[in-house]
């Protein structure tokens, strides 16, 4: 192995830098978590202190549970995120496969057209989208959000996945064709497993903005029964008074599912990022 890498001083420096970065990155999350368990006074008196017997309070969580239908918001967010991700991955991968595998007229043009969406932010079209949703009667439905997020995620998904699919060996696909596999089987059984790291990358990049988005839920689905978690938490932030206990508790609970999903995808993600280097 490389000598520089086994040198204990270097190793220590490397770990030191990484630990420092981890601390900095985790600090805001940590502050949110500890303060969500403190009384309002304690939050303002000593924002960085850990909750003790004196300052400990579940008042924030109680408010969140009482006010508004927190579990419904949670469920809405979950449905929107998971279904959008599923659509992005499924349709993105299918489009990417078609673009990378088949020669047809306008193949290049189609690829460029799809990539255009990466450069133009979807929010520019908000008014038009709202008009469309009103016309189709989809306002205040989760479907509206799912459709918008899917459209928002597809360009990058197609772009990344088609690049990876080009690298899947032609011989392998051809072997499948000779063995009588249908194009669908080749896609689902041979190609998809081989681009799994890329799929995980796409999933992570899309998941967090969707989960945290406030813009589209506020415009397209502000009704009580379709509120997402981020939108639901806004009731605690007022123009003059903000219920910090409740906001911090809601945020703490909102972090959890993203964390879980991230852990699921991260193994694949790391493999995706390093696959070129390791081979």
């Amino acid at each position, binding site marked *: 192995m490389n000598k520089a890498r086994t040198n204990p001083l270097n190793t220590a420096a490397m770990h030191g830098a990484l630990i420092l970065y981890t601390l900095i990155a985790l600090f805001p999350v940590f502050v949110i978590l500890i303060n969500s368990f403190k009384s309002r006074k304690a939050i303002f008196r000593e924002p960085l202190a850990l909750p003790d017997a004196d300052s400990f309070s579940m008042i924030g969580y109680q408010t969140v549970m009482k006010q508004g239908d927190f579990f419904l918001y949670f469920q809405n967010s979950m449905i929107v995120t998971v279904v959008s991700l599923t659509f992005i991955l499924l349709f993105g991968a299918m489009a990417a496969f078609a673009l990378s595998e088949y020669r047809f007229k306008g193949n290049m043009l189609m690829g460029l057209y799809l990539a255009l969406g990466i450069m133009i932010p979807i929010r520019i079209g908000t008014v038009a989208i709202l008009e469309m949703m009103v016309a189709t009667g989809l306002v205040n439905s989760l479907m509206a959000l799912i459709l918008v997020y899917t459209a928002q995620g597809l360009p990058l998904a197609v772009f990344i996945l088609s690049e990876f699919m080009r690298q899947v060996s032609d011989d392998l696909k051809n072997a*499948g064709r000779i*063995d*009588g596999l249908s194009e669908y089987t080749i896609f689902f059984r041979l190609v998809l497993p*081989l681009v799994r790291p890329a799929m995980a990358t796409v999933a992570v990049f899309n998941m967090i903005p969707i989960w945290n988005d406030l813009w589209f839920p506020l415009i397209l689905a502000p009704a009580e029964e379709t509120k997402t978690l981020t939108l639901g938490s806004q009731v605690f932030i007022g123009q003059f008074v903000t219920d910090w206990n409740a906001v911090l508790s809601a945020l703490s609970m909102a972090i959890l599912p993203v964390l879980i999903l991230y852990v699921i995808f991260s193994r694949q993600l790391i493999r995706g990022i390093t696959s070129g280097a390791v081979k």
Partner: protein
Amino acid sequence: MTALTLTNVNKSFGNVHVLKDINLEVEDGEFVVFVGPSGCGKSTLLRVIAGLEDVSSGEVSIGGEIVNTTPPSRRGIAMVFQSYALYPHLNVRNNMTLALKQEKQSKQVIEQRVAEATRMLNLEDYLDRYPSELSGGQRQRVAIGRAIVRHPKLFLFDEPLSNLDAALRMNTRLEIANLHQQLKTSMIYVTHDQSEAMTLADKIVVLRAGRVEQVGSPMELYNNPVNQFVAGFLGSPAMNFMPASLISEGDTRTLGVRPEDLFQSDQGQLKASVQHVEQLGGDTNVIAKVKDHQITARLFGQHDIKPGAELSFGIAEGKSFYFDKDGARLRG
């Protein structure tokens, strides 16, 4: 019966004309080798036969049936790829049985075919392993096994040995030759290695830039090439080409002589200065310059020749080939 007939096959990618008017017949049980330099269209031709590419014009028929519109899996062919192309998520047994399951063969048939193929290729110990747990040679044997179990009318091999090291290549080459003897099925084999072509083929098809240059048995092609390209492509070391004016004043033709047809003689017409000597034990290759032209002579046995020596070479009786300036063979 003919196993494969190609009639006026053309193939273009966009405006790149890759295959040009290919006509070819492969008899039942024949071992046919396509050779040619890199990029001449060998793989493309094989893929057209397999049905992985459509022809631009012309007709492909396998076993007497026109298959232009038949999908690859129903053409009765099996193919072995240079990169093995084993399914990474299936173990060896399932790699071999996938096609049979797709064909809805009965369990007994599948069992029996796998048993037969594993016996032929000595794969018994590896049936439950995954491709990533096998060596290159073993993977190639599995790929061949996957082809055998299908009992195809025609085997297609695309440079199956080029990823193996030299010793393994020799062994596997013999194995493929044995396989052909046992199975007696027609095989088409693509390579750019002329020695593989010479040793395996019943019939060699030499391709250049998408055209068939010559078709014939290895010895026909070796002894009677139709042009300078075929003459230079087959045989190792390659045939020597030089202006005929070196041996007869004013002759504008190109003279071709195989290295083994040059012999050392004081009366020889070619006065050469030795540049380099390769002692191979059984043979000695002498690389020398006649005026500005490099020639290679292959002398039988061991000779003590030093670089810088001045030698004369004669040409064996009736072993000279003549070509015009376009490379066409001139006879008589």
